[in-house]
């Protein structure tokens, strides 16, 4: 039995309305750091609001430690939450903010003081306890929200895009901070974000959601290297995966993916999987990092297209080459040809058979 169990969870805002969360199933182990990742409107926030009890469940069940919580009030569920706006109460001092849940539990004053101070120490805001939130920076308010969340020693930590209101630099450092606190407290956490780099850097497992459904559950490495659907391949990675419409053709004892400006020999390991698709259209996806450029126009192993560089976007550590392959704009990540001039003719090869094919109808990966 897993620690948190989500079974066939459904959410509709109106009767007979669309399913915002569509039959979601998920098991989370104790101590895991789970990230719900997806574009806005994918149902990720709705899901954690249902776990916290702020939103009613339309169907299915949620269990913590084997016990169903969907009929319980938010305060009875033993969860704590960090909100996008921090939800720090401006009319209370930092101390009162953190002590609020303990005061409602009617704990003795000495114990409240002890626990608030411990939480303040863990979040490094000991010196701010007497201040009011209006006298504090965004990062400090964020820490107060974290302190309030850990002071109750929750069964489950819910975080609803907690970093999205911080500036870029602080966001990156708070990431590390949150992960550190998670590990130190030994808590189980669910973190909601639409920022993939946040998800990749923090998560033990990422739950990628799209239109109310789970697209893939996996470690950051899995979702990147072994994307289950076209959506995941497109959503994970910067710049996103390049997609080409191709038709699979048989040629000799091999298969060729052929499309507008693209001609690519399907790797041998995919031969059996791709055989049923001969004569059919599929989506071919190649990550910018796995595209190799040769200026001498040599058709090496993994050759897929000839093209001309339109623009070069230098990024310091690497450059992004922007080209047109057929009518598709393709972005290529390069470290060898950082100072390539626009207008250069190049041949594009796929590195080490790092290609993904997706079924056009189901959008599932073919493998």
């Amino acid at each position, binding site marked *: 039995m897993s620690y948190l169990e989500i079974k066939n969870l459904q959410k509709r805002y109106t009767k007979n309305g669309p399913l915002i969360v569509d039959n979601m199933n998920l098991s989370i182990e104790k101590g895991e750091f789970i990230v719900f990742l997806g574009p806005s409107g994918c149902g990720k926030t709705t899901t954690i609001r249902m776990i*916290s*009890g*702020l939103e009613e469940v339309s169907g299915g069940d949620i269990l913590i430690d084997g016990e169903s919580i969907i009929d319980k*009030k*938010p*305060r009875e569920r033993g*969860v*704590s*939450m960090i*909100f*996008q*706006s921090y*939800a720090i*109460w*401006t*009319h209370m001092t930092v101390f009162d903010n953190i002590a*609020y*849940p303990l005061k*409602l*539990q009617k704990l003795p004053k000495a114990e409240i003081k002890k626990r608030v101070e411990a939480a303040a120490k863990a979040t490094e805001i000991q010196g701010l306890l007497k201040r009011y939130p*209006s006298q504090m920076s965004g990062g400090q308010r964020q820490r107060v929200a974290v302190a*309030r969340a850990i002071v*109750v020693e929750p069964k489950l930590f819910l975080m609803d895009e907690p970093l999205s209101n911080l500036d870029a630099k602080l966001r990156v450092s708070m990431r590390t901070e949150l992960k550190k606190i998670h590990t130190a407290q030994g808590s189980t956490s669910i973190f909601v974000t639409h920022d993939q780099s946040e998800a990749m850097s923090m998560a033990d497992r990422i739950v990628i959601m799209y239109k109310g459904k789970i697209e893939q559950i996996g470690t950051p490495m899995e979702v990147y290297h072994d994307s289950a659907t076209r959506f995941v391949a497109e959503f994970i990675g910067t710049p996103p995966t390049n997609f080409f419409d191709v038709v699979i053709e048989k040629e000799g004892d091999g298969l060729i993916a052929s499309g507008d400006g693209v001609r690519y020999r399907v790797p041998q390991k995919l031969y059996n999987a791709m055989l049923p698709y001969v004569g059919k259209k599929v989506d071919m996806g190649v990550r910018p990092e796995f595209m190799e450029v040769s200026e001498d126009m040599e058709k090496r192993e993994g050759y897929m297209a000839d093209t001309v560089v339109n623009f070069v976007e230098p990024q310091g550590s690497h450059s992004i080459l922007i080209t047109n392959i057929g009518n598709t704009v393709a972005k290529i990540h390069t470290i060898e040809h950082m100072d390539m001039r626009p207008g250069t003719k190049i041949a594009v090869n796929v590195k080490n058979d790092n290609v993904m094919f997706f079924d056009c109808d189901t959008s599932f990966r073919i493998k």
Partner: protein
Amino acid sequence: MMDRLNIVQKTVVAIILAGLAMIVIIPLLFFLTVSFSNATEMSQFPKNLFPSTTVTVYVEPEEDGAYELFYDYGDGNGYTSVITTSSADKLENHFNRQYGITIDGEELLADFEQTRTDGPMEFSYKKDMLYNFKQFFKIIPNAGAALKNSIIVSLLTILISLTFGSMAGYAMARFHFKGREQINVALLIVRMFPTVGISIPMAMLLIRMGLFDTMLGLALLYSVPNIALTSWITSSIFIGINKELEEASLVFGGNRFNTFMRITLPLAFPAMAASSMYSFQTAWNDTISALILTSENQTLALVVYKAIGTTSSGIQYAAAGSIVLIIPALVFTFIIRKYIGQMWGGVEL
């Protein structure tokens, strides 16, 4: 804005502002002076802009233990004979009524004794500055009760308006129900009715309910437009309070009630303060509804109104009554000013 103007423009602006300030301040100041003036000063022309604190009389000794009193009315004729008497009672009465000085007649006679040896001379006496105020409560015996009534009716109005108005405002801000828009407009329409216009039906209603001539009945009438106003003001504030603040409370151990009491209400306090100011203003200032809806239990505004309307002499007492009416309103406004400043001062909620 002032920084961007040159010296000429600044001067012009300053003159205009000073002029406007004078227009507001001078009548108030004059009114204040009137409330501190004695009967003699009231009959003087031109009047002083600032109230005097002492009265000076010139005394000449007369036969049979009598004294002749002279007073300078400031009309250019110098000292004018006012009264000649040897009676302590008459002197005491004269000083009291005409000069607003509370002093024993025998004491005056003893003072004047000096003129027998030293010849005619001037005597100065301190005015009782609160004479008119005391007199106001003396002349109008129910003024004290009226002050109490006014305070009661104001507090009741604030209480009723805030309780129902803020609940309605909260519902309007947080819940989406059928007829919400209609109720919103209806609340506004309620405010459109002049209170006088609904006074007669209200009087009939209150008589039937047994609330005629009671402060509760009056407070109910005043609350009608103010519940509407309060719900408008508070609902706009409740909308501005981030829902996550309440949700955080729910997650961290609160139920709906203590979340409202501990989180929502304190955050909406400036709106409450502003609404209570309007409620107070209605209840404290009204005369016409009180005139219709009360007989014995009058409010202070009504009493002052009647005092002004019925006294031909002694307008200074009515002025004193008006000051009594103004002071609590000023005090109340200053107390809640801070919170209203928060509401319209751009402080983040």
